[in-house]
């Protein structure tokens, strides 16, 4: 009885599946664009708009499977196997940070949540880069990654903020 209560309704499951597909499409379209600057790790992170929307409308419990499915499917279809470690570390740290901040900010100030999420994402990726290359010199990238995260996080936060205004309520 309890297990069925915890299970999402078919309508909600459908919406979450749609959100996963949407984030996968956004990720793919973004991967077609050339990297804006020749620094590894700097990208717009547009797929995070979907994570932010699901986190805001439903919660971390729903955003986590959407994020995990997007990461696994995008690595399977569009990236190298090594990208999985970077995406998982960055994505999970980003989601954790955004979930905590969203609770603290009571779902307001979405741009701040998004900026800190983007920074956490880049810090997670830097941690994996450091573990794989084992050269502390790669930490020189961190200031560049943090500044770019502030810019891209603000952009994705604004996109999510305006999208949420027009999106209907998600089913329970």
């Amino acid at each position, binding site marked *: 009885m309890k297990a069925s209560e915890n299970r999402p309704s078919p309508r909600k499951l459908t919406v979450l599946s749609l959100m996963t597909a949407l984030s996968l499409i956004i990720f793919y379209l973004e991967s077609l664009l050339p990297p804006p600057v020749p620094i590894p790790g700097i990208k717009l992170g547009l797929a995070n708009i979907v994570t932010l929307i699901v986190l805001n409308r439903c919660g971390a419990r729903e955003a986590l499977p959407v994020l995990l499915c997007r990461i696994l499917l995008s690595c399977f279809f569009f990236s190298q196997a090594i990208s999985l470690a970077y995406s998982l570390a960055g994505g999970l740290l980003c989601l954790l940070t955004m979930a905590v901040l969203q609770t603290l900010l009571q779902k307001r100030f979405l741009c701040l949540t998004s900026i800190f999420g983007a920074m956490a994402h880049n810090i997670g990726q830097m941690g994996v880069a450091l573990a794989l*290359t084992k050269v502390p010199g790669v930490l*020189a*990238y*961190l200031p560049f990654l*943090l*500044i770019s995260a502030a810019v891209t996080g603000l952009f994705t936060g604004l996109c999510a903020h305006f999208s949420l205004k027009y999106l209907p309520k998600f089913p329970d």
Partner: protein
Amino acid sequence: MKRLPSPKKTAYCLTGVLAAILLFSAFSILHAAWKSSGRERSGDPSTLEIYQNGVLIQSISLAQVSETYSFTVVGEGDAYNIITVSPDGAWVSEASCPDKLCIRQGSLPGSLLPITCLPNRLVIRLADDSPRETDNGADALTY
């Protein structure tokens, strides 16, 4: 249960933290640029280190390079990076990685950042990042 502080108050605190992070990052970049320009002004020949999987595979003193040459660093599977070395610096001229970011990162010295190819786990960096006032040019890793 303890009540959470108001969202407005938390937002102010977070904005302060954000400003501090951005200031620190900007200062770090300016410091790196200042160090780089100091190196250029001193005219000291640089020593470059090439790491693969965290292992130093080659150390190149640019003072000993008289003409341009290239060599290949082979990674796991079919991964490779072709590194070109000239008396002025070194750069990745060809690579098997899909994004080719390592090629677009330019040459060292000259760039503020090490050249990194994350898919092939290759890092090219300047050997001596410390100030050179007391340095007589010798380096434990230079040959």
